[in-house]
């Protein structure tokens, strides 16, 4: 009797969870699907949900007009390097906050987060002028630095929450054994924190990938990432749903695939030490 109720309950839960999951995913499904339609099919009434002549035409058109690989490569480089650089700067900071806390640690942490509240448009001119002055416009270097700085507070905070979960006694013991600070970090802390660092990097890679204000305003042709690629397909003249869908799919596919493969890591990355 009890067993049948749990089975029934499981069936209901399954139905509900799948319904919600599909509903949330639907816009993405629809975008991918539309990218395989012709422009006329894309606005067909009633909408075509699966049965139509699939075509790759939109991808061909998009690829012919813009060199997708170049945008993709810029996105990968900029997101990757800014994340790497950010983690290199954040690890020592988070370490000291977690293991040598002072009265001001929490204030510093919150202050770091508050630097993210400066609205980007408000400082568009100052930053643009600085970029012009230092010749950083349309360079990957410039973008790597800016995106690193934008995400640094989040990186520090996430790493801090992981490090705090590592029991201090282990470090104490190592110190007793005469381990230097460097050895302590390299041999003890880092191996324990690797999952945390990995998920932090993953989350920041996503945030950098999706950043669309600075990447658009500080680039032209050479350093332009996928956000600029998208800006050339939004609302052109005439029917454009299918081509927009193809461009959108191309812009989100790499990160979507990466996210799916590393789902478990990311789930951990998103906890922010919320689990207690």
């Amino acid at each position: 009797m009890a067993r049948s109720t749990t089975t029934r309950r499981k069936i209901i839960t399954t139905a509900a969870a799948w319904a919600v999951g599909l509903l949330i995913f639907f816009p993405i499904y629809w975008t991918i699907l539309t990218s395989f339609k012709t422009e006329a099919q894309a606005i067909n009434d009633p909408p075509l949900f699966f049965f139509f002549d699939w075509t790759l035409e939109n991808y061909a058109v998009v690829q012919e007009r813009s060199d997708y690989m170049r945008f993709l490569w810029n996105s990968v480089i900029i997101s990757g390097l800014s994340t790497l650089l950010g983690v290199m700067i954040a690890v020592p900071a988070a370490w000291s906050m977690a293991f040598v806390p002072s009265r001001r640690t929490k204030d510093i942490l919150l202050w770091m987060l508050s630097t993210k509240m400066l609205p980007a448009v408000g400082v568009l001119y100052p930053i643009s002028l600085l970029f012009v002055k230092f010749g950083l416009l349309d360079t990957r270097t410039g973008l790597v630095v800016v995106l690193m700085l934008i995400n640094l507070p989040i990186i520090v905070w996430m790493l801090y929450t992981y490090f705090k979960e590592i029991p201090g006694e282990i470090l104490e013991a190592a110190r007793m054994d005469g381990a230097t600070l460097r050895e302590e970090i390299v041999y003890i802390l880092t191996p324990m924190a690797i999952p945390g660092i990995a998920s932090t990097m993953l989350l920041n890679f996503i945030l950098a990938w999706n950043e669309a204000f600075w990447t658009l305003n500080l680039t032209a042709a050479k350093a332009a990432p996928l956000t600029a690629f998208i800006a050339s397909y939004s609302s052109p003249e005439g029917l454009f749903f299918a081509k927009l869908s193809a461009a959108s799919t191309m812009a989100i596919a790499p990160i979507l695939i990466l996210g799916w493969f590393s789902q478990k890591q990311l789930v951990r990355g998103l906890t922010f030490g919320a689990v207690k």
Partner: protein
Amino acid sequence: MSFANALRAATSLALVFGATAQAETITIATVNNGDMIRMQGLTEDFTTKTGHTVEWVTLEENVLRQRVTTDITTKGGQFDIMTIGMYETPIWGKNGWLVPLDDLSAEYDVDDLLPAMRNGLSYDGTLFAAPFYGESSMIMYRTDLMEKAGLEMPEAPTWQFIRQAAAAMTDRANDINGICLRGKAGWGEGGAFITVTANSFGARWFDEEWNAQFDQPEWKEALEFFVGMMSESGPAGYATNGFNENLSLFQQGKCGMWIDATVAASFVTNPNDSSVADKVGFALAPNSEGVEKRSNWLWAWALAIPAGTQKTDAAKQFIEWATSKDYIELVAAKEGWANVPPGARTSLYENPNYMEVPFAKMTLDSILSADPNNPTVKPVPYVGIQFAAIPEFAGIATEVSQEFSAVYAGQQSVDEALAKAQALTNDAMEAAGYR
């Protein structure tokens, strides 16, 4: 004349150029309109002729404006050529931000540019941007629906006729709206449309002392007329419709009439994209009965060289290529005469091949009848028809058009919107030191 011959000719040309100038790579910012995308596709021809290569930065219109404006005001120097319009050109030219195009080659034949375009893209008599294509606005209507309604479109109709015809053509049960017009917020979208409509009711943006004129009866009359007509015969949700949305509605056969840019004519008559390609007629933009001015605007997308670029020569070569007579021939040979960039050159409208295109004459007539120095009946202190060529206009008109769009969406009354428009315009003009 074979392909091989042409190739040989092109190669020898390249050799001649290549000997005199070194090959450069120029960066061009442009808008993602159909004609520009076509130009992008033909870049190869430019490269074979000159040896220079091109990096394209193709952006959606709003993003492009934001991008190039920031670049020019901060002297970013990211682009060797920028695609700008008739609004920006005189302002930027005046500030010395653009390279004067006063030494174009003799073959380019600068005198062949339509005078209206040339004037609109000059400051103080100097040309600062070369028109890639130019446009006015006109009525595009469905001949079949007009016939069905038992009406005949005059060559130069009035707003009153348009309203009556729109009501007669409307068939909501079959998803046909008598008229589709821009209501979308933004100075270049609904803002431009309501401004020209107001012009044709005798209204103006500013009096000679730069006082806002939204408290005048002409504005109220124009806005009430527009809202009344659109609620009778316009599509649902027209408050968010701009050029693209209306184009798509018209192509799907959901509009009886559409008053918009003359360049749209080639899209609505293109059987590949339009389901009503063979049923489209054209007429001059309307005026209100008894008002001398018609509601047609004047605009050009043009190519300009920002001052400070190191590659002025290569950039000039590109501009000469892209806005030349040869480029028009090139597009005509590849895509047919209906698809060449219109509205820039007199010679195009003297070409018998082009004049066979159904909308050619009406486009020219519309462009010729637009006068940026006298946009409306009363005198104005500004130049420009659907805009006033002062730096503050884009900001003010965007906010004003947002107030108007709220009227179209039924969120406030005409009087409320006009009062707000009046206040915010005077406020902004005061901030800028005009009043």
